[in-house]
């Protein structure tokens, strides 16, 4: 509680100093005070002040040294311990075989995601945070197209496998989950290997266009329609993936890690801002004259936004990172299709008064002379490609600490660009769910042909061998 009070006071002080007006006020007060007290002001006082500050610094350098180095040390230490923790994690990749007819809406996927959320782990005390280096374990939902053949994969920490399988089967009874070798081992591991195999790579990360408090257009929007207007936007996505040429590969991963349950509190201000009805000033024709603030009725867009944001922050959210990778042999490499088509597919979910997706161009694997530092474009591009490839293969999450990002940077490629955003279960379910019956890209997916039902009544599956009636 005392910590809260101090942090609140600290925030107030920081906010005070953030305003330029406060600084002007302070300077005026100091000047006015000096004039009143008769202290000599002007250049002499400035000189004196500077000398004073310098002498104080010289006498107490040992304090400032500590104050500056200690947080850096903690940051670096945390990075090291977290990397050790991450290295000890083991993951399993399961392929999801899509049943031929899924009558379930993406809400089934949302239920599965709730289960993912309940598996959340977070460092609960100083020991787990600073010694074990615990971080929230993450899952990866992947849709990959190998030359037009689309596969769905889920990568999870191995210890959660049974949980995930159970929840999957309870929500999608006809789907099948099979453990497979990670397809990523087929990708080149370094840019040099890629060049030698004459394979070119392009990759990027997608981020939100507005604050995370605003949701994207989720599946509920597309569902509340009549029969013929019903549309599963993942079909647009799958169409893009299926149009890939036979030797190309487009792979997408959505990395999710269960986030802080109180994430919505930061965005309560959006709601209060939106709830304030807009006003307009009107010349009053009454006896007083003058202007008057008159409230306007809220526009439909604003009401929608208000409801959407309220709905958004009421659900649990994941720290999300969306990565996309495109690989093709050199002669047929053409990343413009991948870039524009994928961006278009993601932007089916965007809306002007809500949120949308855009490329995180600082993290993308191709840059030009127009971004800082405007030099050595080829080298920077190579490093970016390498980092994108490495991050994709390892399903890396960006380091949490400043020193972590600094130490994983290179002069040609800083690591401060990659970032995660919060998206709630509804949003993730919209992006990744088994295609419903309205999706027609049947030829491009290998589906499970059979249906599954329960066993016939009276089957002795729980009994002992002795209880079976034997035919003699």
């Amino acid at each position, binding site marked *: 509680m005392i910590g809260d009070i101090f942090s609140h006071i600290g925030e107030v002080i920081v906010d005070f100093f953030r305003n330029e007006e406060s600084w002007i006020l302070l300077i005026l007060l100091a000047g006015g005070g000096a004039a009143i007290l008769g202290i000599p002001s002007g250049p002499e006082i400035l000189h004196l002040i500077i*000398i004073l500050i310098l002498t104080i610094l010289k006498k107490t350098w*040992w304090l400032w040294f500590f104050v500056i*180095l200690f947080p850096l040390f903690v940051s670096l230490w945390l990075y*090291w311990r977290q990397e050790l923790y991450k290295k000890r994690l083991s993951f399993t990749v399961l392929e999801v075989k899509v049943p031929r007819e899924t009558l379930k809406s993406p809400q089934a996927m949302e239920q599965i995601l709730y289960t993912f959320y309940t598996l959340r782990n977070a460092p609960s005390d100083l020991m787990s945070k600073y010694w074990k280096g615990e971080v929230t374990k993450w899952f990866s939902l992947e849709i990959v197209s190998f030359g037009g053949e689309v596969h769905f994969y889920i990568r999870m920490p191995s210890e959660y496998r049974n949980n995930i399988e159970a929840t999957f089967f309870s929500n999608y009874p006809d789907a099948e989950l099979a453990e497979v070798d990670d397809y990523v081992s087929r990708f080149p591991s370094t840019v040099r290997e890629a060049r030698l195999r004459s394979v070119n790579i392009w990759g990027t990360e997608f981020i939100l266009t507005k604050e995370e408090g605003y949701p994207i257009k989720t599946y509920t929007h597309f569902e509340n329609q009549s029969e013929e207007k019903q549309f599963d936007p993942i079909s647009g996505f799958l169409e893009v993936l299926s149009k890939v040429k036979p030797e190309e590969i487009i792979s997408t991963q959505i990395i999710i890690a269960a986030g802080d349950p109180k994430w919505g509190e930061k965005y309560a201000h959006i709601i209060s801002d939106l709830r304030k009805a807009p006003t307009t000033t009107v010349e009053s024709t009454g006896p007083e004259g003058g202007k008057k603030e008159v409230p306007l009725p809220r526009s439909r867009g604003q009401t929608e936004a208000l409801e959407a944001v309220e709905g958004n922050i009421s659900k649990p959210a994941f720290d999300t990172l969306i990565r996309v990778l495109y690989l093709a*042999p050199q002669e047929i490499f053409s990343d413009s299709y991948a870039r524009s088509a994928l961006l278009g597919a993601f932007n089916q979910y965007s809306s002007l008064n809500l949120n949308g997706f855009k490329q995180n161009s600082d993290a993308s694997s191709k840059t030009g002379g127009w971004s800082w530092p405007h030099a050595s474009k*080829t080298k920077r591009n190579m490093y970016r490609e390498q980092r994108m490839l490495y991050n994709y293969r*390892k399903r890396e999450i960006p380091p949490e600490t400043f020193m972590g990002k600094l*130490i994983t940077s290179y002069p040609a490629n800083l690591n401060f660009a990659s970032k995660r955003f919060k998206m709630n279960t509804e949003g993730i379910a919209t992006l990744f769910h088994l295609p419903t019956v309205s999706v027609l890209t049947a030829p491009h997916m290998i589906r499970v042909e059979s249906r599954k039902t329960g066993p016939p009544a009276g089957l002795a599956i729980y009994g002992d061998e002795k209880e079976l009636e034997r035919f003699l």
Partner: protein
Amino acid sequence: MDITQFLLGQFGNVRLWEFILGEVRFAFIFLDILLIALFIFTLMKANSVRPKFGDLIHLSGKEVSVLRDPKIVSRWQELMESVAGESSHAYTVAIIDADKLVDAVLKRLGFKGEHIADRIERIASGNLSTVDGLWRAHRVRNEIAHTPGFELNSVDAKQVLGAYEAFLKELGVL
């Protein structure tokens, strides 16, 4: 000194405050040294744990660092000169040398593996048409190395050396 003594003097006995300041200074300097040591220790540990993109660092803009390396070119020329005499023995020696050369090149390019066969396997042929020829040449070399008194006529030997040469040319080494 004047200013600080003046400031400290505002709070009471200057001597007392100077003493306290001295002690705090001592403690903090001790902490600072400890902090520096810990920082360096953690820096070394963090360095061993971070991802290294070293495979790129030698490239410096060119894609293959062995591109027309003069040492390799001259070694290959020597190799070819040694078979001018067209004796079977000279050919076998040359083939074994050529295999060693290609192994060194592959190692330099960063291909991992215990033997050259592992390395050649890791080259997904993709657009390289000469990898099959390289496999065949390597098998011939293995036969030469493992069977004593292996006889090789000059036509076959020239073909084998040609396969090695084509591979090195396609990589851009020769």
